């Protein structure tokens, strides 16, 4: 007995304990609660800067969906987010920490831009096809580099993919300031706007990248769920030793998956450059590669959930921009608001998996708590 008491004293005041699996209903309830709490906390912030929170929230939603044109704008923001989230999902499923989507987007866009700038005279369908392939392969190669080093020398893929982001970005800066500079721009460093022939066509008033994104949702879902390769990815993700024991070629799977992951991100870059920006700029990725990581995890790597979450993110972003102009609220305020909402929702994921234990509690209360939760 005294032994237990001593143990209790040694315990820290607060301890984090992994929870038993919660029932689905309870998880959903917790998440809704988190959303509610984030809205309240965000509301307090809005009230502090002298605005009515309810009006601001309504404006965010109406600003994103109030008209056909607004909705088109929201979807346009969603396209790169959605595709990139799908791309990083493949790598994450394998527990390969690809945080280099930003660079893969940029390099994919750069490869596609090469054809947009110098082969703009080709047949339209052929040119678009070539640009799709080059975007995919470009992004794929950019993703393959860290994978090769990982399987050969066991380098840290988190750092490696992150560093490649900056290299890709500076390649664009170099091309923009030098070889690819718009000759008509009078010294202003920019790449020329693409020829109409080299830009994506529109479908229902939005570049048809949205259709590709939707198709990719289904393809990635089928690939992960039903394809043999998808199964291999999850086995490697759970345990490389198990995969090896089962006779899988782990190296090959890692290389293949990272090529696909980077390729899909590169596709996002190509679609952004040729469909939305109609040029290549240093903002072609614009943080999408990082936001996509959050989206993929919030959606628990489920492609259909990714579709929903990336839509909600786009609504928030598009709506915030309307709030800025309608209420003169600085764009920084919108960023703070987004941060608050993310903080609560990501925090909630923590509480779904873990809970706190206080030192005061003896074993008895511990079990009581567990019972309550059950």
């Amino acid at each position: 007995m005294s032994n237990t008491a001593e143990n209790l004293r040694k315990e820290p005041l607060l301890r984090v304990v992994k929870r038993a699996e919660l029932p689905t209903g309870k998880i959903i309830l917790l998440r809704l609660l988190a959303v509610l709490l984030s809205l309240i906390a965000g509301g307090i912030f809005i009230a502090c800067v002298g605005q009515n929170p309810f009006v601001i929230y309504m404006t965010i939603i109406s600003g994103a969906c109030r008209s056909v044109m607004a909705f088109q704008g929201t979807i346009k923001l969603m396209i790169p987010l959605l595709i990139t989230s799908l791309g990083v999902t493949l790598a994450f499923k394998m527990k390969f920490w690809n945080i280099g989507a930003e660079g893969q987007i940029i390099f994919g866009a750069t490869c596609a831009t090469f054809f947009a700038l110098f082969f703009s005279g080709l047949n339209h369908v052929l040119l678009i096809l070539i640009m799709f392939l080059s975007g995919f392969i470009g992004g794929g190669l950019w993703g393959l580099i860290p994978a090769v080093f990982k399987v050969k020398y066991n380098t840290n893929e988190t750092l490696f993919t992150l560093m490649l982001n900056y290299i890709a970005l500076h390649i664009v800066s170099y091309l923009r300031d030098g070889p690819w500079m718009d000759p008509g721009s009078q010294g202003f460093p920019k790449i020329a706007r693409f020829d109409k022939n080299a830009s994506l066509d529109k479908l229902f008033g939005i570049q048809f990248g949205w259709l590709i994104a939707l198709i990719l949702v289904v393809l990635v879902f089928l690939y992960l769920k039903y394809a043999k390769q998808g199964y291999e990815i999850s086995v490697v993700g759970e345990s490389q030793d198990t995969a090896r024991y089962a006779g899988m070629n782990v190296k090959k799977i890692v290389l293949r998956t990272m090529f696909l992951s980077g390729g899909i991100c590169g596709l996002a870059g190509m679609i952004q450059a040729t469909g939305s920006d109609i040029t290549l700029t240093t903002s072609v990725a614009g943080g999408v590669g990082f936001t996509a990581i959050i989206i993929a995890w919030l959606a628990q790597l489920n492609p259909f959930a990714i579709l929903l979450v990336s839509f909600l993110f786009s609504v928030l972003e598009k709506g915030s921009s309307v709030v800025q102009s309608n209420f003169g609220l600085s764009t920084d305020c919108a960023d703070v608001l987004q941060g608050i909402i993310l903080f609560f929702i990501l925090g909630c994921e923590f509480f779904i998996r873990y809970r706190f234990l206080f030192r005061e509690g003896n074993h008895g209360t511990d079990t009581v708590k567990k019972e309550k939760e059950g």
Partner: protein
Amino acid sequence: MKKFLSLLAVLAMVVSLCACGNNQAPAADTVQSTDDSGAETGAQTAAGVMPAIAKEDIKVGVIHITDPAEGSGYTYTHDLGIQGMQKNIGLEDSQIVRKNNVNDSDATAIENAIRECIEEGCNVIFATSWGFMDTCEALADEFPEVIFSHGTGYKSNGTNFNNYFGRIYQARYLAGIAAGLKTESNKLGYVAAMGQDNSEVTGGINAFAMGAYSVNPDCEVYVKVTNSWFDPEGETQAAQALVDLGCDVIAQHCDTPNPQTVAEQNGVWGVGYNSDMSKDAPGAVLTSVMWDWSVYYTFAVQSIIDGTWSGENYFGGMNEGLVTIAPLSDLCADGTQEAVEAARNQITKEGFNVFDGVIETNDGSTVGADGSTLSDGEITGSMNWYFKNVVVK
């Protein structure tokens, strides 16, 4: 590998399917555009190329590269111009939509900002930064009933997309006189946003250098380029580097007042830009090269109301009141006031246009001819040489 190839093939098929499937797209677009143009039914007058818009129906969208709240530089000055226009014409607050912090290298952000303005009913768009140009050009095509007016670039379409800028070089010439009279080291520093190829910046440097040369043939202008219109840190560093090179007057063509603050900290002098920067660095600023954009914004909106919008490019100067210099501070050398006034008279009354006659460049060649002056096209488009006393550092 085989499977991977087949995956690629499937992808290619999907892609080609999509490419074929989007033929209906233009139809959807046209419907939308005609929908919008139906709203305006003003009669087209003889002088204008666009239908008149009644004062109460005017809605102005302003695309700013930063936030007017920065309080001193480019965006602040443009927004003062918008406020001045609003007052002059008598528009309601609800008739102005501002989009702040629109990244001028993010084409999608620019397009979204402009579309949001149009969606809220804006029929006039003022896009103030160079990088907004290509997007304006494309959207002017898509929304023929909306008037796009773009500052500082070079593109226009003669109807609903024009370009506006001004003879800021006239004011820079005057500022050069103040700087040339003040300098003791005979080294003037100049923080430039863009390099030699950019006519706007290079023309400004030349005018400043020529103004200084006219009163002090011994002085040189040291130029440092930041390669960005808005780079607080880079502008600070460039100004400090110029001070370290021995410059004792720091002039600038960039957005923040940082070069002036650096000058003040180092106990040297400076020439501000955009607004009167003596509020930022009272111990250093001799004068500032200033824009009064309300002159253009009022002119443009009034001409739209009157139905006389011509779609022509605007290139105003000192005579219109678009450009000027701030009142000279007490820091200026004796006799500066007289010299500046004399030059101002030459420009406004005697037809002196700064780039007159034969001009010697810093690579030993010459530009221009006796008895003539450079055309506006040469000033805005092909000024890619430096005046003889300019040194790039």
